[in-house]
């Protein structure tokens, strides 16, 4: 594991791999992974902790929720829903979970149209 004189890294040990791939990275709730269209209303909730210079800690607790109507059974036809928040302007470590109103109403509208 010791670094070579050139400063180039050694190959990864299993411990280093485990530290990352079992504890870090994108997590998707099992229900979102197995839900098939037409069975239930699917809600995709994203917790945003994107590291960017100087902003990592600031939005460590910034949580956005986006609801997606899937009852119509034809999600492909629904327009993509965009998050309304930007982490660059939300330095709010203690702000509780919040929902993005526009996204929700947009989803509802689309659901209504689809029906």
């Amino acid at each position: 594991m010791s670094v070579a004189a050139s400063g180039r890294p050694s190959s990864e040990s299993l411990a280093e791999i485990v530290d990352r791939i079992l504890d870090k990275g994108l997590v998707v709730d099992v229900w979102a992974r197995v839900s098939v269209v037409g069975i239930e209303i699917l809600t995709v909730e994203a917790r945003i902790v994107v590291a960017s210079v100087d902003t990592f800690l600031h939005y460590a607790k910034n949580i956005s929720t986006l609801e997606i109507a899937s009852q119509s059974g034809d999600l492909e036809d629904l327009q993509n829903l965009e998050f309304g928040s930007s982490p660059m302007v939300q330095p709010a470590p203690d702000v509780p979970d919040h929902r993005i109103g526009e996204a929700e109403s947009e989803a509802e509208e689309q659901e209504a149209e689809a029906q």
Partner: protein
Amino acid sequence: MTVIMADEHLYTYGVIDGADRELAVDGVAGATRLYTVEYRTLSAVVSDIDTLEPEQTDENLRAHDEALQTIMSDEDIEAVVPMRFGMVFKSARPLKNVLRGSRSVLTRTLNDIEGTVEMGLKLVAEEGVTVDRESVREDVSGRLRGVSVEETENGLFSDRLVLNRSYLVERDDREAFDAAIAGIEDEYGGSLITQYTGPWAPYNFVDLEIGVDR
């Protein structure tokens, strides 16, 4: 409307920008082929798997990491949001649904990490050696600040561990970063063991959870 049911589930490794791709790489659970499932500009890199709960064997853990290494070494892929181990989707349908629902945040994350890699640095005190931890930590921060985008502190799980950090480094700055690490090793070679690893997918700089409100 016809719903096509896939016979196989999909093991996911990460999310990249666009482009249909196929990689002849060994994957988790004996897979021999990686390919992409796309939703508009996003692609999830996947392989077929017959279980929703792959075992955490050494072989599978390494396969997950190696697949990501291969993705990162592709010059056409500027960024990858790495998945945690074990993210199996029942079929392409829920996967596309998740990509669609989180498209905005995934796209923004990919933009943030574009062209970067994660490098790991641990400094471990040699047996019986006492070092001024604070001055070492400050000195290292100073040496690496100019050649990295961001640093994160990881746990000091051992008394001998003086420093345990991950650095987000521009690919173009890798040589300079390597040189700075070599400088650190020269400076502290007698008292500290340098453990330098990477490049990794930016695991310590991407923390996303997508759930279902039931």
